[in-house]
């Protein structure tokens, strides 16, 4: 099963992966979590829905995303 992993400490909370990019809409900026650089990192709401398309990875500038299958 494909799934996505956010590298919380690398993420800069830009939100580019959360803005209608994901076809199954499972990425959000964490409302509660904060990393040691002071950013709200991206968060996965339901990893079982991930189709491994890689769109989130492609728009991520860091890249703070890893995708496995």
């Amino acid at each position, binding site marked *: 099963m494909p799934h996505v992993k956010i590298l919380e400490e690398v993420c800069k909370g*830009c939100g580019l992966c959360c803005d209608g990019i994901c076809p199954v809409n499972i990425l959000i900026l964490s409302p509660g979590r904060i990393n040691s650089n002071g950013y709200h990192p991206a968060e996965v709401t339901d990893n079982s829905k991930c189709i491994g398309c890689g769109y989130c990875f492609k728009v991520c500038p860091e890249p703070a995303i*890893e*995708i496995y299958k």
Partner: protein
Amino acid sequence: MQQIFGRPQGLTDVLQRYCPGCGHGVVHRIIGELLVKLNIRERTVGIAPVGCSVFADEYFNCDMIQPPHGRGPAVSTGIKRTRPNCIVFSYQGDGDLAAIGTAEIVHAAARNENITVIFINNAIFGMTGGQMAPTTLPGMRSTTSVQGRDIKKQGYPIKVCELLAGLDGPYYLVRTAVNTPKNVIATEKAIKNAFVNQVDNKGFSLVEILSMCPTNWGMTPVQAKKWTDESMIKYYPLGEYRNRAKEGK
């Protein structure tokens, strides 16, 4: 469990000091992947510019040189001619390439120098605090055009692909963007072509990438991504401006 997407070996582990949502990072990732996929990392020399990507020598996992502002194409020419087996890429911003470095890029293109140029057009001098660049759009605000760029006083933006397409020399000229997955995939293909052309000794390849600078555009990254579609791509149309591979030359 197999990783299908992740940080490529062509990048170091150093965390990049770009602002959130900056387009430079996406282009770095693409180059980092291609260095490995094309098996050229060990013989590649990258040229870092002056600009926000001045620290690119820390980010790319290949040999790097950081010459004076705008001189990337000249330094690339020297390396490529003395070490023809090296793959040389010049990574430059719009201030670097289209202002102080205009002479170098025009002549390298005219000579059809066998190098790869990665040109990051964010319509602004990013590093120095958002001053107007030759590429700043008409009406666009910057710290040196606070009322918006006035074409009567400051003239029209320089469209680099169109300008260089007026020369017979260059082999490959293309403009892409990195604001959507579709545009990123097109950028991946274009940069790949630009490296493969050099490996095949075809000559000068330049990929102009419309890149977000949320900080100096005064926008959130998501707004910057949309503004790229609404304003940047409208003024700077995407596509190939020269591809001699297709012309069979």
